[in-house]
């Protein structure tokens, strides 16, 4: 088939998916998850960096034995990273993938028309 013809057919299929209500919904769900979580982990991480610089008294406060606030704050960055990664995975599997695969199928159907 002519390259130009293929290109136009694909573009039409993309436009069809783009104007589908499911696609608007997919975009909305994705944005509503990643924007607040990105802000959360960036603020949380920068707060940790800032405390290392400007809240050393607080960070040096001992909690259990030789374990102080600084170490716990650092370990909590690990915990939050693991938790957000797991939450996103669960969210994407349940709320994004079904919509995405439906739209992917729609794209394939549109291309065959």
């Amino acid at each position, binding site marked *: 088939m002519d390259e130009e013809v293929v290109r136009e057919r694909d573009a039409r299929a993309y436009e069809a998916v783009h104007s589908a209500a499911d696609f608007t919904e*997919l975009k909305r769900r994705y944005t509503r998850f990643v924007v607040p979580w990105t802000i959360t982990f960036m603020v949380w991480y920068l707060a940790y960096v800032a405390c290392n610089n400007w809240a*050393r008294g607080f960070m040096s406060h001992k909690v*259990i034995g*030789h374990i102080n606030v600084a170490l716990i704050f650092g370990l909590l960055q*690990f915990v939050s*990273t693991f938790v957000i990664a*797991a939450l*996103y995975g669960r969210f*994407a599997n349940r709320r994004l993938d079904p919509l995405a695969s439906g739209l992917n199928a729609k794209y*394939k159907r549109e291309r065959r028309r």
Partner: protein
Amino acid sequence: MISVPFLVPLADAEPGNQALTISLFTAVVAVTLYITWWASRQNRTAADYYAGGRSFSGAQNGLAVAGDYMSAASFLGISGQIALYGYDGFLYSIGFLVAWLVALLLVAELLRNSGRFTMADQLAFRMKQRPVRTAAATSTIVVSIFYLLAQMVGAGSLVGLLLGVKSEGLKAGVIILVGALMIFYVTVGGMKGTTWVQIVKAVLLMAGTVLITFLVLVKFHFNISDLLGAAAAKSGKGESFLQPGLLYGKDLTGQIDFLSLGLALVLGTAGLPHILIRFYTVPDSRSARRSVQWAIGLIGAFYLMTLALGFGAAALLDTGKGSAVEASKGNVASPLLAESVGGGADSLGGAILLALIAAVAFATILAVVAGLTLTSASSFAHDLYANVIAKGKVTERQELRVARFAALGIGAVAIALAIPAQKLNIAFLVALAFAVAASANLPALLFNLFWRRFNTSGAVWSIYGGLISAVVLVIFSPVVSGKPTSMITGADFHWFPLSNPGIVSIPLGFLFGVLGTFLGSDRASEGRYNELSVRSLTGAGAEGPAKH
């Protein structure tokens, strides 16, 4: 700053140890060469060579990503910095880990769906091919070469150190050997060979680290507080060893510098080309997501264990002035700790563990340099040669031939630069690679995905703007001149006070992207942006796995 250069040879390595170490090194090399030869028999198409046929599973790619990311600088450098500076040595690893959330939430899956082989593919999707590919390839090659040079110079010193070799000539020999091996992996094995080398390395590194961590924790009856207490007492610095401030942020400039470093670390990872192209090796965006989750688990577990290694070394080894650990800037802390928990310097157990950790460090270097060489060679062949110079009028065979020659050329350049650079303090190049990735690549990638109005001039401006500002600021910073620890010690032309440019260059990268977009005359194509968003979010029309 994590530093590998300027090492002193390990005090009097015994001939027996040396023989054992060399035989384990040989075993590592033999295994990786076999893998490469095996992989070469399955390399047929461009998708095989550049993207390993896109048929790795999420777990396999997760291991490979971890193997690509955890350099000898993290393995030996971070534990060494903890051994010397306590708590502050741990801070690098937190930025390195949190950074993966940027990759997971904003980049990995969308890139997998919308690109083919290189970072530039994703940008070129809706921009003018030639200017955007030239810019993206330039920044890919610059970042990769910076990173590669730091690794190669580190390799020379490190292997010399682990084998007890003192002569400069032999260290140069080690650099040539490492360079020759990486050229072989990349030209012969392509992405498939490189990926398996990285998987093997990740398994070895995790196993070695788990073993030493376990042996350290046994010594302290699994009581973390006792381990920390012993480390603080032995360090001679008391409780301040467990508190922030021994290494970073001594005055306001230092504090802003530390914030700047933190920003570059957290935003740089998702813009490192050698990490980005790893997402093309899986069949779909779901597996790209799984890879990042695996990588986060592995990298997080690894950095948690470096805490035990670092504080263990501080508690069990001599780290005072004049000690081997202090003289090596901490780089021998992990190997010597392995020797100590294995039964001490004169025991068989100690000798075996020391040799084992040395071999793991060697495998680590090989896997990382191979990934970097492949990345720059792919970008040269696919972006610059096939799409800019030949304007897309090349056969796949020709393009792959160029990729293999490019790997050879880049390897040769890296060897030629690394040998004279041995005498320079170039450890800052790793942090600079992160700063460039965060300032040049990340703004372009994010704007391209999420900003409809973004156009070719915006992309070109943000890449060159971020790249040039990061590099220029570092040239005029104290890491290059003006301090006893600078790269150039004879002159002082620094005017930028910070060692890390990120806090200035990252906002500049984004700003240049905005300015370029509004000042450039070209209009972004609405249709292509809609296509990109459909494709990146749904995977419609994305490159599928190779069918053999």
